[in-house]
């Protein structure tokens, strides 16, 4: 009991959210922007951040009566300006054929002009606004569904909620509309929330509605984990920028991905919900406290910090299962040479190469000074060496200190005849003994390439 109580302290509750985060960090100015969708759109647009286009707004009954309905495109979203929780939104997908002024909703049911007018009257009356104050209705361009999400989303458009605090993205989830939620990406109404690994933008665990943990999309065998969200870094970058321009210190940014536009803001939220913790099966308070007071010099730096601090779960899991380490195509490697002389370099991880090669300069720093000198003296063009027998060639090089063998290596530049020495390579905490060839790589971007032979203990993630 006490143990569970202690663990629960990492979870952000409503009291702490309101008192410790919203009150001190979301001041009036920011809330004004987040609670007024039209103003929010304007602020985002002014700062070069994408949102869906505003088509028209209706602020009074007179405007409603004089509105020219023919100016509306065949598909649009009608929203209350101060709505919350996704209430009061009507999305139409097209005009109904053969009938004037009738549109079709996501579920195929028709919407007549009088339906829309009645809905707008309700919006103007404040039926959907916070504390029922009179509101403004507006039309905006409908975002189109990305192909990738098609099998997962019922009718509506999935969106991505990113919580940003102190210019660092701390937690994110992908929300999928379901039949139960009526095509709305709102967890309170029964949508699915998928936790996201911040480093890779890949979905992890999922929650349905207010608290049911699920693995598959409803009614299917489609796994909800492992969906790779496109434009991931852009999305995080946008969210951090939005925090800076809105002045909301504790922000829940809602971003959808449009087929043409790419990621675009739906809205900014000054009171982000707490369910995101269930989707990620992790506490938000822990994460918020970790980034509190960190100095973040730039937007990209903040994004990087978020990815580093709150990502990598998938990788850890993979490493646990396979017993191998996951590394990227470029990795920090420590080379250890003679008498423990070592050097840290950026190594290119190259599954196209058999063996590992290091630059002559690096070899010198590892204590192979003499070896390199003698090799350069003895070395000849391959065209000359290829005439000789293997034994004769070895005789030319065997006197060089530390050389254990020689090998002709074919590369895109032709064939070079190289000597091999023994060193140790430390990659991601694992030390492997390696026989490496020496070659002049000073003109290349990476002084070291690690080949297949030394990569048996690793999995390579090209996204990293």
């Amino acid at each position: 009991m006490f143990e569970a109580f202690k663990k629960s302290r990492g979870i952000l509750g409503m009291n702490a959210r309101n008192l410790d985060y919203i009150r001190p960090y979301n001041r009036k100015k920011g809330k004004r922007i987040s609670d007024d969708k039209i103003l929010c759109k304007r602020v985002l647009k002014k700062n070069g951040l994408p949102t869906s286009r505003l088509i028209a707004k209706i602020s009074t009954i007179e405007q409603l009566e004089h509105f020219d309905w023919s100016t509306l495109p065949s598909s649009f979203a009608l929203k209350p300006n101060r709505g919350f929780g996704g209430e009061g939104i009507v999305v139409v997908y097209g005009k109904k054929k053969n009938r004037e002024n009738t549109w079709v909703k996501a579920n195929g049911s028709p919407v007549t002009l009088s339906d829309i007018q009645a809905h707008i009257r309700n919006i103007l009356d404040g039926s959907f606004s916070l504390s029922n104050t009179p509101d403004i209705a507006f039309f905006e361009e409908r975002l189109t569904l990305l192909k990738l999400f098609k099998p997962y989303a019922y009718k509506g458009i999935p969106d991505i909620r990113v919580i940003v605090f102190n210019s660092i993205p701390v937690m994110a989830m992908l929300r999928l509309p379901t039949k139960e939620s009526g095509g709305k990406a709102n967890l309170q109404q029964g949508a699915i929330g998928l936790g996201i690994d911040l480093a890779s933008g890949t979905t992890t665990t999922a929650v349905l509605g207010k608290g049911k943990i699920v693995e598959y999309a409803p009614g299917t065998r489609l796994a909800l984990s492992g969906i790779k969200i496109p434009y991931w870094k852009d999305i995080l970058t946008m969210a951090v920028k939005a925090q800076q321009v809105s002045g909301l210190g504790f922000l829940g940014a809602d971003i959808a991905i449009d087929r043409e536009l790419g990621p675009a803001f739906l809205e900014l939220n000054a009171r982000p919900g707490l369910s995101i913790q269930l989707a990620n099966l992790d506490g938000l308070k822990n994460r918020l406290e970790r980034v509190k007071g960190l100095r973040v010099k730039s937007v990209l730096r903040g994004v990087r910090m978020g990815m580093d601090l709150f990502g990598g779960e998938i990788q850890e899991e993979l490493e646990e299962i396979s017993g191998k380490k996951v590394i990227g195509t470029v990795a920090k490697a420590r080379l250890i040479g003679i008498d423990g002389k070592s050097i840290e370099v950026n190594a290119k991880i190259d599954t196209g190469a058999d063996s590992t090669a290091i630059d002559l300069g690096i070899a010198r720093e590892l204590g192979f000074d003499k070896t390199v000198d003698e090799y350069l003296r003895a070395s000849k063009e391959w065209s000359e060496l290829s005439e000789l027998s293997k034994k004769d060639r070895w005789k030319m090089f065997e006197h060089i200190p530390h050389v254990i063998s020689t090998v002709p290596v074919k590369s895109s530049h032709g064939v070079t005849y190289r000597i091999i020495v023994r060193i140790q390579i430390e990659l991601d905490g694992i030390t492997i003994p390696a026989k490496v060839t020496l070659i002049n790589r000073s003109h290349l971007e990476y002084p070291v390439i690690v080949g297949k032979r030394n990569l048996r203990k690793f999995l390579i993630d090209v996204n990293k």
Partner: protein
Amino acid sequence: MSVHPLIDFFILQGVPLDTIVLLLMLPIVATLVAFFRQIIGIKAFGIYTPSIVTFAFLAFDPKGIKYGIAIFLSIIITGMLSRILLKHFRLLYLPRVAITLTIVALTTLTMLVIGGSFNRTGLASVSIFPLLIMITLVEKFIATQIEKGDKTATILALETLGISLIGYAIVRYHVLIELIIAHPWVVLITLPINVWLGKWTGLRVMEYLRFRKIFDQN
């Protein structure tokens, strides 16, 4: 029963004892509602509705609490039915509430009449103000229905009923009544309690249950 001189003085000025006790109880009921929200996580319809329903229940006394509950439930059910009924008409908010209030008022009147004909005089003799208070509750209910849906509205209504009943039990508790009459200043203790509640940032009991999965799996 010992009576604090201050209370004596109030009575001497012509303020009825009942009124004094009820007014002094109000801070306690309000604190109870705040406690349920901040610590337990039971929301109800704000602070006004559960407090006022508590006192409405009190007015059904001494033997009428069951009628109070019956009327409360009938109001919620009628409110729900009229929403289904009025859905097709697509009415604006206030006219819709007005119609619902009409239906609820007539239903309540019918209940009183039926109660009377079965010699349930406890029901018919209830004074009008607690009834009116309960009937106007329906607006809160409809507003919540529109904003958050039927399910949430029903849950909040039942939570309101629960808190009001607990409040009712506390306000009726004779030890507490005697304590307040003897030491009216104890009411002021609610102030520091509320300051504490207002600064409490821990998890609510309901949140603790809701998020249990997160720390269970870790």
